[in-house]
């Protein structure tokens, strides 16, 4: 009988292996975890979310997604490790126990299943999804440019052949629309954490404009604490700040849409690498990367729990 205990958390896995793991994980931890299908990808693959809940209804919740850019394999691996950490720590770790006694957690581990499958089958360095449209030669839309906030602005590209192609219209991509519909219907998401790689940054809105968000001070302080907690694990230095002032102007991105939708604690991680392997981070760095990221995620979760709004 296959189970999550025979699953290697320090290796990279195919889409099929991850989906099998999700099934096993939800079965083995059915007291706290369940699997939800929030939609279908362009190529009709299921889009799956793990829900962590200890009861109640319509509780405030935290959303975590990984893998929106297909080639960023370290993010899916970190998501899987984090899911196991949550169930292992509930009842032991003070923060996790307090959070789950009052809130739910939703984790979408493979936000771009078609693109991820393509990185295993054809092109390891593919970034976008796999949507195609009549009369358009190039395939795929950058799912982190397809959101409504600032859609089509600077830092996204109108050319379908570009790696940052924003798509024909906001939420044109089923992978984005599925998240928008789920979060909008839920209506009580209080924090959103979207995990990318690489360049070791922790950022908050806005990306589409240099204008600071109204909660800039609080988000800056929270990011600073989270980055410090992360640093103390393995000494990895992250920079932090708003996307447009820390990295570059980027329009139509997840965290801008989340913030504009009322989710104050919206953050985007850029995990390792420091500049040796890029997207090809060796599997030996999966666990240390996940361990340090976990401390930053915990910091954000605890702040969200202690600052209801």
């Amino acid at each position: 009988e296959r189970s999550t205990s025979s699953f290697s958390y320090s290796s990279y896995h195919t889409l099929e292996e991850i989906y099998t793991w999700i099934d096993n994980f939800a079965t083995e931890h059915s007291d706290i975890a369940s699997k939800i299908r929030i939609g279908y990808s362009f190529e009709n693959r299921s889009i799956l979310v793990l829900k962590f809940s200890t009861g109640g209804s319509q509780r405030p919740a935290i959303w975590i997604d990984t893998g929106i850019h297909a080639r960023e394999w370290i993010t899916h691996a970190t998501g899987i490790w984090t899911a196991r950490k949550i169930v292992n720590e509930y009842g032991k770790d003070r923060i996790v126990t307090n959070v789950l006694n009052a809130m739910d957690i939703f984790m979408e581990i493979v936000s771009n299943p078609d693109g991820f499958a393509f990185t295993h089958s054809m092109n390891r360095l593919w970034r976008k999804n796999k949507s195609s449209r009549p009369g358009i030669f190039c395939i795929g839309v950058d799912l982190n440019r397809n959101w409504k906030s600032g859609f089509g602005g600077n830092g996204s590209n109108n050319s379908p052949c570009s790696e940052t192609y924003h798509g024909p219209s906001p939420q044109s991509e089923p992978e984005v629309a599925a998240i928008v519909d789920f979060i909008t219907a839920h209506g009580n998401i209080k924090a959103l954490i979207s995990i990318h790689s690489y360049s070791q940054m922790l950022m908050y809105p806005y990306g589409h404009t240099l204008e600071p968000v109204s909660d800039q001070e609080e988000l800056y302080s929270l990011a600073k604490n989270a980055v410090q907690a992360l640093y103390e694990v393995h000494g990895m230095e992250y920079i932090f700040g708003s996307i447009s002032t820390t990295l570059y102007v980027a329009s139509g991105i997840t965290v801008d849409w989340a913030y504009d939708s009322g989710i104050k604690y919206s953050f985007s991680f850029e995990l390792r690498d420091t500049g040796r392997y890029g997207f090809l981070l060796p599997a030996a760095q999966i666990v240390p990367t996940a361990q340090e990221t976990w401390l930053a995620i915990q910091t954000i979760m605890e702040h969200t729990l202690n600052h209801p709004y």
Partner: protein
Amino acid sequence: QMNFTGDQVLRVLAKNEKQLSLLRDLEGLKPQKVDFWRGPARPSLPVDMRVPFSELKDIKAYLESHGLAYSIMIKDIQVLLDEEREAMAKSRRL
């Protein structure tokens, strides 16, 4: 599976905004050839770009002619991909 033998990732340190825009121009000069792993953002941040083997000579000449300092971050992408695939296969066997 696409093969990336000989493809390299160059790390470019742009000194100023002008040099950053020279890098941005590359996306237009060589459409679908240059793949920015870390896009041109600000002078304090490195730019990492994957260059197909067939374009290496042109791109390096372009960088050198514009005084753009670069280093080779990944000498041959396919070598890392083969290692990654072997590690996955080994893990699966285990």
